[in-house]
């Protein structure tokens, strides 16, 4: 069959196919690929394309068929969305499961964050000037000012209106979730970026906490931070674990090429960091609208302390049953 006959025979088929394709490519397609018999006509077109290539028909025809195949391929092989559409399933099942799957990495990140935090915290408690060495004079003074009795930024005596609370909410989202994402991304440098950010944040938070545990600041500081502590600190740990997951794939690829190991590890790591982002969102909400409110410290303490076992139960128990 020469090219002219070939084109003549199949032009109507191609026109039909292209019509369906154009409908599928619309913003809100009214037809589904299955209903329109699209897979069958796609395979027929693949066959025609293969024939055109093997018979060395003119490049223009081959290109045209290739273009049609390519567009069809993009319609037919759309991937099922996993994160956004199934947010609820993600929260109740996928995220806690992912944490259990990577339990060792979680504890490694936990140690990398809390060991320096506790060590530096105790040291700074004994030597309050440590904070000046770690954070610099200016920042240390800022922290003191924030948490002194009647301090301006936070605390029960602060002049907080709904207005400034929302501003802080925006700031916590912008700042904290960005830190979580960076901790994840840093993992691609063989885990080094994540390790650094975990230890760095541990040291910094430990120093601030140790310093501000002295009167007169402690009466402001602990009620303020306890409420959101569980969500915020564990989310940073989980972001770190997600980055370590990337790094580990590169360091120990388990028989794969390093880049392939990285590609396999990435989706699980992304689930971890997205879950951490949701936790940071909750933390930002608590921090902005609850931690700085005029509620009595005892209430804040109890809710703050309660967050830890609640999250532990959520991580260990949620999503154990098989999906319905």
């Amino acid at each position, binding site marked *: 069959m*020469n*090219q*002219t006959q070939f084109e003549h025979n199949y032009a109507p088929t191609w026109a039909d196919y292209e019509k369906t394709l154009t409908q599928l490519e619309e913003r809100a397609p009214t037809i589904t690929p299955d209903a329109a018999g699209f897979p069958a006509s*796609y*395979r027929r077109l*693949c*066959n025609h394309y*293969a024939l055109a290539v093997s*018979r*060395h*028909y*003119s*490049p*223009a025809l081959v*290109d*045209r068929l*290739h*273009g049609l*195949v*390519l567009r069809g*391929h*993009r319609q037919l*092989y*759309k*991937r*099922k*969305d*996993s*994160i*956004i559409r199934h947010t609820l399933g993600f929260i109740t099942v996928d995220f806690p499961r992912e944490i259990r799957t990577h339990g060792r990495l979680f504890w490694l990140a936990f140690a990398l964050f809390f060991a320096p935090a506790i060590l530096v915290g105790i040291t700074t408690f004994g030597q309050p000037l440590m904070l000046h060495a770690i954070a610099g004079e200016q920042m240390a003074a800022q922290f003191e000012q924030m948490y002194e009795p009647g301090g301006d930024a936070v605390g029960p005596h602060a002049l907080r*209106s709904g*207005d*400034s609370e*929302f*501003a*802080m*909410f*925006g*700031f916590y*989202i*912008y700042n904290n*979730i*960005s830190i979580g*994402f*960076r901790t*994840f*991304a*840093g993992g*691609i*440098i063989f885990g080094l*970026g994540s390790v650094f950010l975990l230890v760095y944040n541990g040291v910094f938070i430990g120093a601030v906490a140790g310093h501000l545990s002295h009167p007169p600041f402690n009466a402001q500081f602990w009620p303020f931070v306890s409420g959101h502590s569980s969500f915020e600190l564990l989310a940073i740990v989980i972001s770190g674990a997600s980055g370590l997951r*990337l790094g580990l794939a590169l360091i120990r690829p388990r028989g794969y090429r390093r*880049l392939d190991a990285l*590609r396999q590890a*990435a*989706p699980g*790591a*992304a689930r971890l*960091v*997205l879950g951490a982002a949701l936790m940071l969102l909750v933390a930002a909400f608590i921090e902005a609208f609850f931690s700085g409110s005029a509620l009595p410290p005892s209430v804040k303490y109890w809710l703050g302390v309660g967050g830890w076992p609640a999250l532990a139960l959520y991580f260990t128990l949620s999503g154990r049953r098989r999906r319905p």
Partner: protein
Amino acid sequence: MAAALDNIFGYQTPEGIELRHAVSGPLARGLAWLVDLAIKLTAYLIIGFVLAWAGGVGVGLILIFIFLVEWFYPVFFEKIKGATPGKKIFGLLVIHDDGTPLSWNSAVIRNLLRTIDFLPLFNITGLITMLCNNRFKRLGDFAAGTVVVYGNQATRRPKIADASPQPPPQPLTLEEQRCILDFCERTDRLSLDRRHELARLVPSLANSSEPERKLLAYGNWLMHGGKRA
């Protein structure tokens, strides 16, 4: 079919055919990045002006907006539209290595890792990584298994100029036949001198006065057989 230095890579689909994609280089992607940057900055300015009067709530909303745009602008557009507006302008498209459209997961991975590709400044890490592999992937592309290619090009459908069909003087291999057809399809975009020059590369036509007419005749014969179309 692709030459060794081509920017085309093929992927074999389950249907047994090879899909071919043209990988896009650092220049087009860099320019697309600049366009996206300009779009984002404009959006910040507008939102900033609009919400400036709203006090604390405005500040909060601006910060949330900046956060969302900074991290999720490319995620959103690459998943929904296949490319950010900047990439669209340059005809680029982000796809998986196997040619399928981007999933949410891959879009998130490749764009969260942008932070590292940006280091130490102006995407230098990303640029170096891109220059070290044949598909111009940055680190985020490696982790997500994605690649940036040129999207649908307008398909050209040139007609081969009509000429009285004439069989080639000797049997031609398929490769040679395709070469002649390729030439015939391109004649209308070439100058007369260039046409002569190219056609004379065929040894038997080296001394012919109108070599491209001969080739057109062969081309017509290959396309339509002995009959005139």
